[in-house]
């Protein structure tokens, strides 16, 4: 990442939430609808503060249910739109997200995850992986899910998000967490207006006499029609899987133990890899950047030479299922994690790695 930052980029120290908001403005977002919730309220606050000076619209909605449906309307009208929230608020958006996915509307939704379930805590968590990746709403649909692990990526992935959303007419979720939202880091901001936008021809902008009405809908009452829509969606998801998988590797070349982790946990794992390498243990890290599409194939390849996997998450074990699906029994896959807003330390991960390394040729997964 670092190297790619071009000279035109402006360097700032920013909170992740603010970087995401600023990036959205620079990415040419037309409108934002949102509702306050810790730990992401800075996004709405930043945007309301900037609005009179820049060219976009913000509205504080009466709820997250309203926000996501405003997004539906505005996206359907051809605008580049975003909403953000944190776990409970995102749960309230599940119906709307399913509608948006079905009606194939492009938009970016960020979930600054906090510890759950329920009202839970406001501290960082990764407990919403399943919801984001498998689909918390009803029916067979997919969000494209991007998982930043730095304030820089909080900004960059907004650009990627809009690009992918519009390319595939699909909602994109930025799955981040309270720590990434609240922390400040250096961020190099891309210049304003660097992401092109054209009003899509399917948008409901008023029907000229020369074309048929544009209709945004997710209702396909005849099952044959609904099946056709589903087949189309599944094909699209397949295409996305073919083209858009992103991941990062760190010392995987000769690794016997592969850590897998996304978002904030991947930073902890990187540190753990450093520590382990210092201790002479051959450890590497694979960090999925896109959670859907998931880098199944790359993990499957790594399962050839590696001897074991350890997935590290800030939850009870969610992405680990996808890692297991990828490894498919070739090697044992272990899990370690912390729940409820607690961040595992690199040292804890190291301890787990050392334990595995001590026994590297004799590891077996617990039977489920």
């Amino acid at each position, binding site marked *: 990442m670092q190297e790619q930052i071009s000279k035109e980029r402006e*360097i700032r*120290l920013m909170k992740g939430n603010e970087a995401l908001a600023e990036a959205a403005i620079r990415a040419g977002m037309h409108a934002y609808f949102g509702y306050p919730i810790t730990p992401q309220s800075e996004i709405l606050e930043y945007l309301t503060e900037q609005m009179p000076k820049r060219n976009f619209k913000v509205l504080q909605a009466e709820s997250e249910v309203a926000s996501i449906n405003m997004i539906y309307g505005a996206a359907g009208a051809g605008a580049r739109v975003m909403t953000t929230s944190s776990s409970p608020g995102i749960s309230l958006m599940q119906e709307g997200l399913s509608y948006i996915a079905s009606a194939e509307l492009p938009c970016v939704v960020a979930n600054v995850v906090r510890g759950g379930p329920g009202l839970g805590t406001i501290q960082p968590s990764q407990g919403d992986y399943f919801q984001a990746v498998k689909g918390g709403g009803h029916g067979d649909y997919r969000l494209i899910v991007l998982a930043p692990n730095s304030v820089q990526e909080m900004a960059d992935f907004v650009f990627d998000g809009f690009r992918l959303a519009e390319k595939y007419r699909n909602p994109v979720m930025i799955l981040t967490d309270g720590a990434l939202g*609240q*922390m400040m*880091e*250096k961020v190099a901001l891309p210049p304003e207006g660097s992401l092109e936008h054209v009003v899509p021809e399917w948008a409901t902008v008023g029907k000229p006499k020369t074309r048929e009405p544009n209709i945004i809908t997710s209702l396909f009452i005849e099952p044959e029609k609904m099946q056709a829509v589903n087949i189309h969606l599944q094909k699209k998801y397949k295409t996305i899987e073919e083209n858009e998988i992103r991941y990062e590797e760190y010392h995987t070349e000769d690794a016997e133990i592969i850590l897998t982790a996304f978002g904030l946990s991947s930073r*902890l794992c*990187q540190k753990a890899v450093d520590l382990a390498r210092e201790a002479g243990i051959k450890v590497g890290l694979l960090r999925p950047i896109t959670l859907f599409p998931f880098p199944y194939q790359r993990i499957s390849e790594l399962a050839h030479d590696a001897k074991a996997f350890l997935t590290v998450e800030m939850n009870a074990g969610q992405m680990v299922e996808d890692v297991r699906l990828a490894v498919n029994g070739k090697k044992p896959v272990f899990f370690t994690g912390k729940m409820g807003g607690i961040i595992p*330390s690199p040292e804890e991960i190291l301890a787990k790695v050392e334990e595995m390394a001590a026994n590297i040729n004799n590891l077996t997964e617990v039977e489920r």
Partner: protein
Amino acid sequence: MFHTDEIILAGFGGQGVLSMGQVLSYAAIIDAKETTWMPSYGPEMRGGTANCIVIISDRRISSPIITRFDSGIILNQPSLEKFESAIKKDGFLFYEESTIITPPAREDLTVLKIPAIKEAELMKKKQVANMIMLGAFLEIKPVVSMDSVLKALKKVLPERHHHLIPLNEQAILRGRELAAQQIQMTV
């Protein structure tokens, strides 16, 4: 070897601990170092304490949330109670004199007691107490260059407060003096 500094800054809300941390982090960027600044957030802040963790390092920082620190800059009693034990062995503790009733007990630490509020009052601007503390810290732990700190001030202070930059600079320098004197005294 790579070097990392992990600092906790804590006090009441309104004492400027958050912006003190931001100045550090911004200066680190200017020094081309890696840095993270992580505030406590949420209702725990309500009328109570505010704190932030600043990490400055030569290489990529893993977690912005840590529980053990190289140094602490402490501006009230509850924070001292909360964080004294969280400072690493032989670490550094800077505290504001007038706000602390029970001083720290640990003997392994290098402890500096800075009369920042009193000094700030002398400078006719109570709000710069935080910069006096920062100056004191930087005198002992020059984790970023003074040059960058002064540049960072401009970035962190909102435009409407830019006329106060000279005063803040002064406060930082005053803090350095106070720390220098005190270290000499203890040595």
